[in-house]
């Protein structure tokens, strides 16, 4: 409002000058207060990202720093031409779709229970929240050991004899997915709970009087009115599941063709110290995240102003 001021008329000078002084001071303070946080976020993301793009153009291994040479998009063609990369993309895709779909359904159920619970409300809410606080690695260990041939009780409880869950691709992945669902559904349910709380109670009553059954109320009134919350939860969880790493590392170490994109990037850079190649995977991973976010925001019209909180 006071950003661009024409030369003030003499009589008004005092007041205007004062106001714009004040707003200038306010601006300065605002930027000053934001500076440390922005600086640290930039330091950890922007510079390394640029560096990653740069390094991904080189053939470069830490173990042989003198062999470093520019290869242009060579690393990218290597990665994109490799069947392993596409296998990892497929694995990541399946894991993401399954976890997000299941979590939205279960999360919605949990949100309904938290919203309406009549019985032991506090206990139920606390219980739902527990997995959110548990370290992902520990959750991965818990589920791994539960299904493990050596220590697990699942086989005997389900009467499966000696089923080796971690010896097949899809059976290992289903346990990975299970642990991911257990750990992150609470987050989804909290986002959905916030959406549910935004739906005024009398809408449901009005629909009841209008002749809607419970099922019709859910689909015609409740869900359409919390679409924003559902899409936000879906977006967050999709991006999160797309980056899945901890569980895979602990449970399968990428064996039985269970490697995901994040794991591939990690393995190339840290384990194999093939920095150039690993960074190329990392950059591709980053681009895929941008793509997914764009699809959600443009394609599904997720209103992020609600998430950012800037009304």
């Amino acid at each position: 409002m006071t950003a661009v001021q024409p030369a003030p008329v003499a009589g008004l000078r005092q007041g205007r000058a004062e106001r714009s002084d004040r707003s200038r001071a306010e601006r300065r303070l605002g930027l000053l207060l934001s500076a440390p946080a922005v600086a640290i976020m930039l330091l950890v993301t922007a510079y390394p990202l640029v560096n990653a793009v740069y390094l991904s153009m080189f053939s470069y291994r830490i173990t042989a720093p003198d062999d470093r040479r520019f290869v242009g998009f060579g690393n990218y063609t290597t990665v994109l031409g490799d069947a392993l990369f596409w296998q990892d993309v497929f694995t990541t895709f399946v894991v993401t779709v399954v976890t997000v779909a299941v979590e939205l359904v279960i999360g919605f159920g949990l949100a309904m229970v938290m919203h309406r619970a009549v019985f032991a409300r506090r206990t139920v809410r606390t219980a739902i929240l527990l997995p959110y606080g548990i370290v992902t690695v520990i959750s991965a260990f818990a589920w791994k050991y539960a299904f493990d041939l050596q220590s697990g009780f699942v086989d005997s409880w389900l009467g499966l004899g000696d089923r080796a869950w971690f010896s097949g691709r899809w059976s290992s992945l289903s346990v990975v997915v299970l642990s991911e669902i257990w750990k992150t559904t609470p987050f989804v349910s909290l986002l959905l709970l916030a959406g549910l709380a935004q739906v005024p109670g009398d809408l449901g009553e009005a629909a009841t009087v209008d002749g809607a059954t419970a099922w019709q109320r859910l689909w015609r009134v409740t869900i359409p009115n919390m679409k924003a919350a559902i899409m936000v939860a879906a977006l967050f969880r999709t991006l999160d599941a797309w980056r899945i790493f901890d569980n895979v590392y602990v449970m399968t170490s990428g064996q039985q063709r269970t490697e995901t994109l994040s794991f591939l990037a990690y393995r190339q850079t840290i384990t194999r110290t093939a920095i150039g190649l690993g960074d190329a995977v990392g950059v591709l991973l980053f681009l895929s995240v941008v793509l997914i976010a764009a699809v959600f925001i443009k394609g599904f019209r997720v209103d992020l102003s609600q998430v950012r909180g800037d009304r």
Partner: protein
Amino acid sequence: MAAITMSNIVKRYGDGFPAVNDVSLDVRDGEFMILVGPSGCGKSTLLRMIVGLEDITSGEMRIGERVVNTVAPQRRNLSMVFQNYALYPHLTVFENIAFPLRLAKRPDDEVRRRVTDTAGLLELTDHLERKPANLSGGQRQRVAMGRAIVRQADAFLFDEPLSNLDAKLRGQMRTEIARLQRRLGVTTVYVTHDQTEAMTLGDRVAVLRKGVLQQVGSPRELYEQPANLFVAGFIGSPSMNFLPASVEGTVLATPLGRFELRDERKAAAAAGRRVVLVGLRPESFEDAALVGAAKRERGAVVRVRVDVTEWLGNEQYAYVPYEAPEDLTARLRELSRELDGDQMRTQAVVALDASSPIVAGEEAELWIDTAGLHIFDPATGANLTRDEERVAELGRHSERVRAAKREAQRVGPPS
């Protein structure tokens, strides 16, 4: 269309407190019934029991011939307008109105026809494609009504539908609702705490207090022949004044002065009692200087000191403080609190002609129309001077009024 019959309806919540206690009420087919009372009197609970959003603890609720105690709301075929309208924010005005028809899976062309007719009736035709968030308060209110009438329900239920509108719009919508109801002739139950709405809209008004039905009758009956202290105090604005009086033969000694009961019936009602509460509406007072000799004879004149005056243009109010015995003061204060007021001191409110020259802080002579006074039992609150003959007469009158109103608006409902 159907009558709604409530017999001994009780609603008790978990803590055992009866929100509605033994209410029996008969809403006749096509009647406009108002449920009125101060906040917390159970009127909304009663309405929600009719529509089925609250369980009935005991008693019987009938709609037409059917007992509906355990029938789910969606099968009662009633429609309701909520206080906040409860419009579906994700649907257009058209789809909001069409919602009940869509649920009933009516064919598309029928939905379009009926919604268009309804929108025409409510002058919403130009707004059908808009979302509720973009409508004004009055338009939202009309959409809510559209959704209620589109379905040809057996009865309309309104839960304080005008309380979110500003005063001017409220007046307009009030007439609109009245016109629509007479025109469609649908049984209507309307909850409000606003007595202007109660008096102007209702064929009959049911007054509730702490979950108990106090009196049911035409607005005139409630005003002229209240059954008890509570109804007398609740109906009418400003409220009726209650003066403690000791009975000395046919003379009542009140803090404002002594006056004689000329009406034999009223004298008989007070006879044999030591202390009574005398109910006098503010309208029963006049500036004695402006009253002619003949009229002066028919009432009583008292001399009082006026504390404050409020001049409103068309009339003016004068406030006359008085001293009352401790126990009766407590009783009156309790009554005032029950009526959602908080009267700090005992004072009479007097409505005078706007031309009256009475000045605050000075003494004045007031004429009291003693024919209009009521005498109440201070212990039970019962009206000792209710005139049953007059009540019957008022009942017959209200039937005539109702028939005439409906005749005036007689047009076929939207088909």
